[in-house]
């Protein structure tokens, strides 16, 4: 009834996409030279960059970092790969572009605290009083990455990204269990935000850079943005409903 007229060319989609992320995010030419990106991923990223005429193209595989420096992007790629690894159940967060998602979020208004009250005085408060740090999400993530890398450098003589999968999981488990003291940020706050961002990117609409090809939706059976079930809810009671998941850009 209020469905917008379809635009077969995808031009509207691209325009909206650029509006949302800024031209730098959509068509950045920088490749993730550092970190643990494989040769395949770099090639895929380059290919995405050269045919960026259509916003619905998979643009998620490493397509350049707006906010993170090379050490930070390497950390985030390794971290999301540890939190949601690729395994027999389904795809991992890294291959779906979740590091890109987090990078864009950190560069966005959200990352810059556009919905945070940041007036002082600052006090620690009780857990029930919630977040009380004078830091935006991007400041918190940046400081936390530096903190963890410093701790890992000391314990393992290496950066977090260079550790084996097993060692990375052990570092994450220690962060979660608050067994690690971080010099700058409260460890539980940092870990929770990192995990929250990872899960968000994994399950958010593919247009945000994670959940490439809606693979995480496919894995769980969520049909995505194409959601009109008035004629289906009764016939499909207790019966499997299968649909190829669609993101917003697939429908415009």
């Amino acid at each position: 009834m209020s469905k917008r007229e379809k635009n077969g060319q995808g031009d509207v989609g691209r325009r909206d996409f650029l509006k949302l992320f800024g031209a730098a995010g959509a068509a950045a030419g920088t490749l993730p030279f550092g970190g643990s990106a494989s040769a395949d991923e770099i090639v895929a990223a380059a290919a995405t960059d050269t045919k960026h005429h259509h916003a619905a193209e998979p643009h998620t595989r490493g397509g350049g970092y707006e906010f993170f420096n090379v050490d930070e992007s390497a950390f985030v790629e390794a971290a999301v790969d540890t939190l949601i690894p690729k395994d027999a159940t389904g795809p991992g967060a890294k291959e779906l572009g979740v590091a890109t998602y987090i990078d864009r979020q950190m560069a966005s208004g959200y990352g810059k605290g556009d919905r945070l009250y940041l007036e002082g005085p600052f006090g620690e408060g009780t857990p029930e009083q919630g977040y009380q740090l004078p830091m935006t999400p991007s400041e918190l993530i940046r400081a936390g990455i530096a903190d963890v890398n410093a701790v890992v450098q000391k314990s393992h003589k290496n950066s977090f990204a260079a550790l084996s999968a097993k060692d990375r999981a052990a570092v994450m488990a220690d962060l979660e269990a608050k067994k690690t003291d971080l010099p700058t940020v409260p460890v539980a706050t940092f870990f929770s935000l990192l995990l929250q961002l990872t899960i968000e990117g994994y399950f958010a609409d593919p247009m945000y850079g994670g959940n490439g090809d809606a693979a995480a939706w496919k894995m769980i059976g969520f049909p995505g943005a194409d959601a009109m079930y008035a004629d289906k809810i009764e016939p499909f009671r207790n019966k499997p409903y299968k649909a190829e998941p669609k993101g917003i850009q697939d429908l415009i």
Partner: protein
Amino acid sequence: MATKLNPVDVLIVGLGWTGGIIAKELASTKLKIVALERGGPRDTNPDFIDPEIHDELRYAARYDLMQNVRRETITFRNGESQTALPMRQLGSFLPGLGVGGAGVHWNGVTWRWLEWDHQPRTRTVDKYGEKIIPSDMHLQDWPITYDDLEPYYDKFEKTCGTSGKAGNINGRKIDGGNIFEGSRKEEYPNPPMIAAQSMVMFEKAARNLGYHPFPNPSSNASRDYVNPDGVAFGQCHYCGFCERFGCEANAKASPHFTVIPLALKNPNFELRTNSIVLKVNLDSTRKKAVGVTYLDARGREFEQPADLIILSAFALHNVNLLLQSGIGAPYDPATGKGVVGRNYAYQCGGGATAFFDKRTVLNRFMGAGALGTCMDDFNGDNYDFVKAGYIGGGGISCSNSGARPIQSHPTPHGTPRWGSEWKKAVVDNYDNAANVGNQGAVMAYRQNYLSLDPTYTDVFGRPLMRMTFDFQDNEVKQMNGQADICVTIAKEMGATKVDRSIPPVPYSIVPYQSTHNTGGAVFGADPSTSVLNKYLQVWDVPNVFVTGACVFPQNAGKNPTGPVGALAYWAADAIKNQYLKNPGPLVPS
């Protein structure tokens, strides 16, 4: 320096459900009406169209339609012994912003509260005696009964196209509807929605246990509908993007496409968006309001004189405006004196998550905000207070409002929060878990209240409002008792595993629980325990009326929008047919 504008007859602060209803109802008076809305304008097209509105990250996780706490927030503490600190990001509740207010992003559950909810003190004392009431509980009757409000409940349901099944028409109990509801004159305007699989299972289990389940009254239209004002609704898509979202189908009743366009048709009505009211100005007697001071989008300050002022912002903002303006005496818990900020209450939650084996297919993503099956067997006074150990129970329901995966990927207790084991649990349980939840009443207490904070200010330089709130023993007992009942029902539904949970105690501002903030500017029969008389008119300043959930003396085990809408029609009626004919107090104080 404020620019003084030409006077108007009626000034409305906040244009959501209640401001919209009053603006529309007063259109026939030919009075000059101005509405000031702190947020921007918006409409179904282009703001809520499909597929862009189906964006969980933007609307559900990043709160696109909500108040921005960078500009205005509250401070919070659990009790007097703590120093309140700012709510630096949204969490426990989500006040709206913009034309339509929270009426745009609500779920659409539209109750008539139970008869007991209107007269809880009288009915409790009659049945159990005075002694059952804890000494710090401000259990307080409404100044009107369910029967007084019945025609206005009916009017609001028809405005909203509410879909449901009556359980009591003219005293005749009807099986399949809510047999505990007060007597209705008429059936709902639309038939119930189509039940989802989990609701079919819940209904059967509840009946097996001897309870009385019925379809939630839902203002997500079950069919195409034209309301008595001639406003067309589309049939609900069951898209599963409802609460926190606008509706692409105009199926979820919202003021932005119902009452507000009708108000805007009136040539004597003017809407000014991006206009934030800082305070109501009083004359030297402090008994009469002369207008308001507000800022426009550019930060220019204006003084808008008006003869009659309606505060129809969100519940918390209305109380804040009263405190900022010095209208009514602020409540002081030490002396028990004062009324503004008194009886702030909230909502209890918790219940059970039922996990089923793989043969059960729920298709949870086919959902709607108000799609659910409920029972009131342990709500109001439909159960034994003494046996249960608590006053004011809750509705127990199984809802199917969608399965947006960022925020809905249930896993059994004990599952790791990340890694391969987490992922496997997410996949195994994504469509195999249903919630049986309690929506519980919260009574008012001496120690739970709203006041101005001594330290923090908003971006405009005003003190922030301070919330002092905690769940008390009665509510903790209720959440535990009701959760046990939810577990029993979940097991009867055939769950292979059941997880029981209640919200954090002490109350926490962090996890989302409910946007049913109530009280702080309550209506009543006694000016020493209420801010407003029964027509929602301020006792101390009779040319100010206040609407919304802030007027409830305590919260019920039900969503607030039904009585909020009904009371807006009730107040509009009193303004139009009594106050405007003879401006002054409608009830002697």
